[in-house]
């Protein structure tokens, strides 16, 4: 039995080839982020070559820029919105997902279908209607309004995700808890919830992300500069592109994107557990 070089190393060659293909299709991402970071440290760019390096673009970190609120206050607002959206969403979906996964109640099926239908609604087209709701609740120009709104809009989809994670937990766990004398609520709280940690992590990350990058609602329903978040700050540096200071813009953009990327690294191991809606083979 004589094997050719290719037969012997087919595996290695294939892997090498795959890595090559991945590099090729990923290259726009790699190159553009590389450019973004480089751009934030340079006066101007000729293709990929900075004409002159500078840290001036990062001046917003240590000095106020005319017409803009303080960056740290803005960052704090952003974090506040993101964290609150995350908490609300995790709270609602970890309970809602459990109910949909584990309870039999009238209207369960229609509720799940309704959730999918809600997803068909472009949330921005609801803006005028949402405006009336916020006005009625006296939540205009108020970050809480944004938080509740954002969490509610994301919840239907996130509930599906959570349901998927709950579906993956063996019923024996539940039975054991009930046999041991706990109520359904206690079983959920003490037994099941710790087991869906990956699901909670995934939901939390996506919720945090959506809160962190929320722009349209903040731009429309927040009037005071003291409630600005980073998305608004970035948009302000862009303007309508005519007056964009690209250096500043890249720096603010990098500053804005960094926390989410760091957060993602911490939870990326949970991401591979993402399954939707009780997948059956």
């Amino acid at each position, binding site marked *: 039995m004589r094997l050719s070089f290719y037969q012997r190393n087919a595996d290695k060659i294939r892997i090498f080839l795959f890595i090559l293909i991945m590099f090729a299709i990923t290259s726009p991402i790699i190159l553009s982020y590389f450019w973004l970071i480089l751009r934030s440290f340079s006066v101007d760019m000729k293709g990929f070559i900075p004409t002159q390096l500078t840290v001036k673009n990062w001046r917003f970190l240590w000095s106020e820029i*005319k*017409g*803009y609120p303080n960056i740290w206050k803005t960052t704090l607002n952003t974090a506040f919105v993101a964290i609150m959206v995350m908490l609300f969403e995790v709270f609602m979906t970890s309970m809602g997902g459990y109910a949909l996964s584990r309870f039999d109640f009238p209207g369960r099926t229609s509720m799940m279908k309704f959730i999918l239908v809600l997803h068909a609604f472009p949330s921005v087209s609801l803006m005028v209607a949402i*405006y009336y709701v916020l*006005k009625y609740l006296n939540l*205009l*120009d108020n970050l809480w309004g944004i938080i509740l709104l954002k969490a509610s809009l994301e919840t239907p989809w996130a509930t599906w995700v959570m349901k998927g994670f709950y579906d993956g937990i063996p019923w024996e766990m539940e039975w054991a808890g009930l046999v041991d004398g706990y109520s359904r609520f206690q079983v959920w709280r003490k037994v099941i919830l710790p087991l869906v940690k990956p699901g909670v992590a995934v939901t939390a990350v996506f919720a945090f992300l959506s809160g962190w990058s929320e722009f349209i609602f903040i*731009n*429309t*329903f927040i*009037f*005071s*500069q003291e409630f600005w978040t980073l998305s*608004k700050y970035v*948009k*302000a*540096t*862009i*303007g*309508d*592109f*005519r*007056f*964009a*200071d*690209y250096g500043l813009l890249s720096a603010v953009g990098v500053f804005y994107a960094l926390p989410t990327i760091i957060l993602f690294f911490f939870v990326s191991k949970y991401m591979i557990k993402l399954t939707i809606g009780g997948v059956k083979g």
Partner: protein
Amino acid sequence: MRKVLLAILLVASLLIFAGEITITAWTVGPDNPSFYRFDNLKAAAERLNKMFEDAGVDIRIKVEGFFDTTDWSEFKQRVLFGFQSKQKFDILCSGHDDLGAWARAGYLAQLDDLVKRYWDETYYDIIPSLWDSVKYKGKIYAIPQDTEARPFYINKIVLKKLGWSDEEIEALPEKIAKGEFTLEDFVSIAEEAVKKGYVSWGLYHRPKKGIDYFQIFTSFGADFYDEDSAKFVFNKEKMYKVYDFFYKITNVWKITPKSMIGTPWGSVHKDVTSGKVLAWMGGTWNWAEWKRDYGKTEEELEKMFLVAPFPKSRYGGRPNTLSHPVVYMIPAHSKYKELAFLLITLATAPELNMKHDVQSGHLPIRWQETVLPEYKKDFIMMEGTKILPYSGFIPNDADFDLFNTIIFEGIQWAESGKTPDKVIELVSSRLKNQLKDKVIIVEK
């Protein structure tokens, strides 16, 4: 004189207010350098507070709010919701063309009486044509904050290469203003310059929707608004010529890139300032931008560009430029309308307004500003003011933006190669569909 007026006002107001009053101002650039629109109000408040202090009055004014640098449409959306929900804001800054819609909806306070009250003090001095821009159905709803001209920048260096003498070049703006040098003359020069390889392109216009294009309508004598009936006009015969022009610059003469609309601003300015283009339909504010962001010095710019009104067409119309004053308005629901107006009046002081003009490249709104030393030092401001007499405005109609959107769609179609006949049909049917009886279509 001023102090006397104020004192009277104060005594009256003393009975009502005491302590600190917060005036909230929503202002917008969206260009960063226009921050004096907000800061001048703060400065006005300081002046007022100083007067209060001197007069021993125990009232202080505090100005809050923001200076928005996102973009027009997002700002206007927010303002609209702000009006409807009666957010607390007392001064609003926006383009003059918004006041039609907002006045019609009843969001704005009428200012005729207040203007009259301070007429002798300040408002007599406003460049008269500007008042046209702040009226809706004959009533004043805003105070001009700045204005601008949209000069036709022509590259002198290229003209020289084409064999023009210095004298000929110097005389060109004058000839354009008198209508002796027409748009068609320009086109043939542009074709020549492109053909000879002196420039890549003959004519650049803004790469987005905007109001600059209405200058070309005026050049062809295509009126687009009927003041008496307050309706838009779409004259098929005249507009045919306009769209024919847009069609030909990219498709026949090829003096404008087909990709003009959609090119990033940065690339547009790079091309214009690096001499790749013969003429640029820009604005006075570009000057400051070029110096700040594109590494040009005042000398280089003065050497490179001549500034003229937009030429008229050989077939009727007039040379013109379009002004788009930004104005201060007062919401109808504001609790402190008079105080707000007072602040606006103080912020309209020549030296404060001039700071804004110098910083952002806009033009003065008061005659008194033209005698200030800053004015005389500023080439583009003086040149720009020279073409102000040719200026027109867009109508203060509530539906102007919709009209503009549809007109602009037509421009894009024409430039991308749809024949003018087709474009005329598309645009007129769309206007009918969207604006219904708000538009008069004049058939050929």
